[in-house]
């Protein structure tokens, strides 16, 4: 693998990303045509942007690595990442858009009219975001290490610095067009090497040898190829976390705000499903090819298989060029997801935790933009420090824990909040706290060093199967016990959440 070409490709991605954000759109957006200017972001563009932001290092590198090492059971990762959007679609997409909320704490406030629930949500956004940023930094470190041999801290530092500068320099990263571009870049980067390999071999069946025969035990589901106990439990628990965690990810909701109405929110989600399905066809192929061409990576954790495969198949210039393309795609993955997350987390830190304090400390003598910049810095420093302390966890595993935390906290809040009118404010708070503590305790145990084996390890490694029902149960029981704490505006909220925009009803106009 040639570092020079790969580094150039990575540099190009970085420059293109920042450049489009800072200059390109500012020029192209100037128009005197109102029809063009007041056209909302179409579901297609928005879906590309959501997918671009969503497909992180875990999807780009992690899934292929997991499948390579642990076999067919890991295919559930990409299935779960996709089904998550189906659940989001049928459970929350349209009502969430109609709530008018921009962040998850906004939703909590508008539905439960409680600053306490809002603050708990703000804390959880920061927690989930940090847990999700961690593997992005880890992936960036890995990519730079594979390409240049530099220690992992270097790559992580590069991504952290670029993201903070880019976000703080005006938050241009939230532009739909940039994130949409990232999706197509990632898809191209991942698909091209596969097509080249398949074309070069003329006889694709020979490439698939690793799936058959005596050495193919890894290709069987539930085979314990990865040395995991209770694979059936782990599979279900993982599936549950991924399916119901997606709706609670901080950077997802923010994008739904761009949809003009609930209907567009639904249509966007359908396109997202198509785009994700298309993308996830490829990582398993890397794993299959990797078993043939790079079997040594199985022992090395596997996360680098996507980066190394082109060079293994085609030693020489072709491999270098393809490798550079993949490295660029991987960097696009770190940048887009990290930026989206940092923007979302920093927005919440700024609004809920920092601005009022800053206002008090400086006696009102501050600029709102500065508050956001400080927030962006905090949003990135915390996961970076966590990265330097931990580091050893596999990419997709950490992401799985972030999903589990989201599924155990925001999922009950959103699902019950949208569909159950007898949910009380106390119930909401209790569910968030219980689910949050249970899932983050599991995450902490994992980071600190998981139990040796057997059920404890399975339960801690994939906690969603018990933490999520626990959170749901807590909300329901506590709500039943505190019927007097059902928010007074529940009926009005329900009307607003579920009525199509076309209907002219009293949508509960401001009480101010």
């Amino acid at each position: 693998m040639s570092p020079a070409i790969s580094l150039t490709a990575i540099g190009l991605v970085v420059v293109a990303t920042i450049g489009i954000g800072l200059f390109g759109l500012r020029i192209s957006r100037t128009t005197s045509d109102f029809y063009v200017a007041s056209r909302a972001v179409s579901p297609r563009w928005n879906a590309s942007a959501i997918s671009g932001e969503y497909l992180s290092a875990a999807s780009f590198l992690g899934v292929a690595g997991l499948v390579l090492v642990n076999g067919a059971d890991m295919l559930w990762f990409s299935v779960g990442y996709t089904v998550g959007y189906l659940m989001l679609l049928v459970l929350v997409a349209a009502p969430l858009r109609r709530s008018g909320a921009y962040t998850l704490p906004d939703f909590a406030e508008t539905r439960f009219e409680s600053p306490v629930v809002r603050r708990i949500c703000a804390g959880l956004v920061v927690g989930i975001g940090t847990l999700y940023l961690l593997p992005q930094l880890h992936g960036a470190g890995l990519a730079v290490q594979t390409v240049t041999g530099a220690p992992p801290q270097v790559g992580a530092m590069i991504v952290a610095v670029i993201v903070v500068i880019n976000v703080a320099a005006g938050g241009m990263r939230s532009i739909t067009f940039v994130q949409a571009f990232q999706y197509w870049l990632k898809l191209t980067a991942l698909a091209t090497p596969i097509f080249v390999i398949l074309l070069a071999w003329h006889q694709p069946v020979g490439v698939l040898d690793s799936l058959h025969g005596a050495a193919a035990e890894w290709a069987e589901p539930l085979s314990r190829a990865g040395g995991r106990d209770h694979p059936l439990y782990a599979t279900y628990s993982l599936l549950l976390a991924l399916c119901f965690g997606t709706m609670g990810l901080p950077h997802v909701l923010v994008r739904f705000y761009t949809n003009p109405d609930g209907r567009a929110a639904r249509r966007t989600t359908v396109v997202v499903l198509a785009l994700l399905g298309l993308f996830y066809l490829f990582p398993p192929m890397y794993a299959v090819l990797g078993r043939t061409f790079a079997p040594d990576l199985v022992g090395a954790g596997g996360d680098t298989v996507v980066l190394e495969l082109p060079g293994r198949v085609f030693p020489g210039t072709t491999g270098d060029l393809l490798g550079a393309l993949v490295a660029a795609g991987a960097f696009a993955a770190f940048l887009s997801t990290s930026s989206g997350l940092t923007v979302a987390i920093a927005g919440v830190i700024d609004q809920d935790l920092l601005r009022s304090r800053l206002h008090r400390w400086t006696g009102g003598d501050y600029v709102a933009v500065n508050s956001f910049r400080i927030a962006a810095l905090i949003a990135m420093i915390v996961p970076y420090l966590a990265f330097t302390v931990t580091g050893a966890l596999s990419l997709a595993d950490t992401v799985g824990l972030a999903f589990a935390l989201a599924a155990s906290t925001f999922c009950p809040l959103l699902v019950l909040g949208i569909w159950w009118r007898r949910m009380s404010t106390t119930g909401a708070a209790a569910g968030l706290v219980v689910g949050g503590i249970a899932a983050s305790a599991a995450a902490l145990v994992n980071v600190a060093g998981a139990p040796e084996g057997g059920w404890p390890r399975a339960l801690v490694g994939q906690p969603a199967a018990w933490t999520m029902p626990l959170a749901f149960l807590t909300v329901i029981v506590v709500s039943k016990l505190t019927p007097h704490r059902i928010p007074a505006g529940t009926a009005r909220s329900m009307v607003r959440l579920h009525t199509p925009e076309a209907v002219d009803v009293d949508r509960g106009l401001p009480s101010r």
Partner: protein
Amino acid sequence: MFARRRKHFGTPADKATYATLHTASLASPHLREGLTPAAAGKASRHLRDLLGTAAIAICDSSGVLAWDGVGGPYESNHRRDAKDLAAPTLRSGRTAVLGAHDVACGDPQCPIRTAVVTPIVTEERVVAVLVAYSNNTSAALVRATEEVARWVSGQVELAELNKERTRAMEAELRALRAQISPHFIYNALAAIASFVRTDPERARELLLEFADFSRYALRRGGEYTTLADELRNVERYLVLEQARFGDRLKVSLQIAPEVLPVVIPFLVVQPLVENAVRHGLEGTTGVGNITIRARDQINEAEISVEDDGAGSDPEVIRAALSGESGSDSVGLGNVDARLRQVYGDTYGLVVETAVDAGTKVTFRIPKYSSGVHASP
């Protein structure tokens, strides 16, 4: 038969009740104006009738608001002391019963020897006290004074509510006033009229635009709309202005599509554009450029309207924003006041201008603000 007749006229107890209610009804209109000295003065006569004491006083922290009852030297003596008598109750909110030791003035002829001091409370705050003077305090008097004070509190609270309602009506009136400027109607219709003979088809189109504009501007219900809808209305407005100014009016737009769904108070952009058109084009013969921008700032949308016209003295704008002058920047003050009312004082208009340097008006809107929802 006899019994029925008695019932018809009422028992003595009934009659007393009616008298009390009648007296109370006489006092209430005055109290509904709030606790001003004038209102308190008029009400206090009826309140004394209710209690039947020698004198009553209503005091707040600034002093005696009203006095009714014995006059002459007795009044001036006790009036002077009233503030001190009232002070503990004003502070604690508890009824105080004061004996001759605290109250009597030394004149044996004086009918005032004792006093009952009761608080008048609105929204859990002691706003004033009612002092009932007599020569002898009974438990019944204390009870009656307390009841009257409670009734007065209720009336004063209603007065506060009335004030709130007046304020809300004023806000609504301000919004109404922003909806459409007579200046613009006149100019638009004049421009349309000029096309009626030369280009009837265009005149027809313009009239339809005008109809749509008016329907949006005069719509009923709903204080909020989306930025997309507001921009659509700005477009109609500019089509009408372009009929008047032709190629002299140049508009460019930089709108981030991400902020189009942001909910904004109805008619906040259009008055700014109208202002820009007026400053940028009227009174000159050259070309005026107007730029409308909407940027995505994470939690907020930043919207600005800029013209390259004559600009103005910052002092004039300051006066317009504070609502002092009835100058040609009326729209600005109105928009500023409404933004502050909805989102708080940190969300007003920011105007950058100087003579001969154009004008740029910027404001920010949070993407989410509790209680703010668009209505269709």
